[in-house]
């Protein structure tokens, strides 16, 4: 094998290795977020534990587990950080941009907004059988981008199913 072929093969191996180890956009940030969550709960557990110290205290398990969250998140963060060498040369702003595009693609963002609006309207007391068909039909039309009449049928079927199962059979008083 010539030197050129060797170099080419080494490069290929490196590329495969890099793609295997490549972090998903925002992956390291998520480990950091979990670390922050762990620290937040550890602080509050410590406050509780200081009020009633002891192995059988109501704060003993939360304290122990929140410390574990911190430790495990730290391990994840360090592991991810080591892998982030493959992202060298990418600016922080670019990384944030990539992360938000990865975790919140347009479709997810739109449907998630629909869910939030749906819950908000339910909480406002607008009524399940008014808000639900709007959510179902709206989401179906957005995701399918066509077949508006067809979606009306699916919405009606779904509502009929929910009505029979939850309201009629199980007597659930829907909001």
């Amino acid at each position, binding site marked *: 094998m010539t030197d050129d072929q060797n170099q080419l093969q080494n490069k290929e191996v490196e590329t495969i290795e890099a793609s295997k180890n490549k972090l998903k956009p925002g*992956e390291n940030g998520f480990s950091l977020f979990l670390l922050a969550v762990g620290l937040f709960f550890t602080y509050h557990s410590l406050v509780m534990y200081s009020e009633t110290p002891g192995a059988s205290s109501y704060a003993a398990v939360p304290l122990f587990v929140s410390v574990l969250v911190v430790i495990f998140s730290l391990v994840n963060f360090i592991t991810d950080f080591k892998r982030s060498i493959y992202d060298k040369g990418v600016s922080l702003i670019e990384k944030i941009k990539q992360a938000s595009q990865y975790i919140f693609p347009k479709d*997810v963002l739109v*449907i998630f907004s629909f*869910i939030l609006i749906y819950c908000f309207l339910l909480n406002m007391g607008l009524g399940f059988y008014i808000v639900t068909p709007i959510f179902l039909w709206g989401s179906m039309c957005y995701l399918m981008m066509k077949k508006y009449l067809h979606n009306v049928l699916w919405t009606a079927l779904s509502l009929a199913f929910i009505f029979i199962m939850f309201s009629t059979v199980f007597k659930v008083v829907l909001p």
Partner: protein
Amino acid sequence: MSVLQYLLVPIMDIHLLILVSIGVLSGIYIGAIPGLSGTMAVSLLVSFTFGWETNPAIALMLGVFVGVVYGGSRSAVLLNIPGAPAAVATALDGYPMALKGEAGRAMGIATSQSVVGTLIGIVVLACFAPLVSKLALKFTSVDYLLLGVMGMMMVGSIGSKSIFRGLTTAAIGVLLGTIGMDSMTAAHRFTFGVTYLLPGVNYVVAMIGLFGIAEALVQITTKDIQPIKQKIDKIVPSLDVVKKYMPLTVRSSIVGVLVGALPGAGGDIAALLTYDQAKRTVKNPEVPFGEGAVEGLVAPEAANNAAIGGAFIPMLTLGIPGDAVTAVMIGALTIHGLKPGPNMMTASPDMFYLIVSCLFIASIALVFFGMTGIKIFTKIVEIPKGILLPIIIILSVVGSYAINNSLFDMFWAIGFGVLGYFFKRYDYPVAPCVLGIILTKLLEENYRRGILLNKSVSGLILSIFHSPISFSLFALIVVMFGTQTKTYKKWKAARDAKADVKAV
């Protein structure tokens, strides 16, 4: 009357046969909908059958119970959304099978295993009920704690990028499980003055959010991928297939009955424990675990249905419910003038054997209804995602609301949905988080009881060596932990390689 005569009463009564069958059929569909639980269905039947005679009322409830436990596997396999906590482990290998177009095969296997599991549970209930209940009564708080730890060991069995990711989500699950009012001291934990947080996190709500809503959000990112055409020509597993997995089925069913017989531990814990046990003990599965291994479906499905028979053991012999459904059934029997407890087998042997017999009929009905409805169910996967995903979201939202008729639970489910979405997008397994929430109560209450009884942590540890049950469980944990280490895995790989060379 002899035992055989008692057992034949429901089998000869066409009215009871029909009621059990109706119960199983409706139970399968109820169980497949996240948020509709067996407890809810049986509670509803208590009021519905209030004016009925005892036998038909109990027959219908038993049919629903068996159907619901099995039904949870349907949505777990097809949509990666377990219909009930007992089907969480089923989703781990069932859903990958559906992704390969093998949903029909997966559900056929789940049905056969559920039937065998139920039958083994019935045999143990009928033959060894007093013995098993005596053993279950010997379980101390330390034993329950060790059982919880064994459940947590399953984290290592759930495939993810690294074990630390599984441990992180499991720890977060336990942490979330501690939110709310402490059951022993009524102290408020992480409630920050919000009264809605006092009841804590309902694990079914967490499961609906982490699996249902999160899965729907993740699948939106792949909405344009065409649904997989499911192969439905070979649904019924051959006798050879059933025979091949029989040792695992029997092993898992026995664990299922024993765990089911422990008050407070049910099919959900049994299924998770046996999945872990299967992963450790099965050598060279045809497909790796987590990627559609049949063994990963066999173990939890046999165990969660076997736990039904187990749950009836403490109920019928001691008057202690084995799980939430049997707790409701104690109420139902009391309404009908019966007293489940130590005298039941002598005072009302007819009722004891009626339950055994109805469970048997239910398992036979499960063969028919479990195998026949599969073609309709598999069509669900073929519905375009643009239609299916909004329906899943709404069913998840309504399901979480229906548990306590609470809008707050709905918000919890959405919160868990977002958390689960992040977990899934960044390759953190969600099952350990649900496992953590499920096991928190078992772990924490028994740890604190153990400390109070043994005065200190060291006392608690030493008490393990004073009881044969505790010591056996501890030894099992040591073995489970040992088999997860790199050293053991290297040694095992070297040993297998040597064996292969010798064989050649």
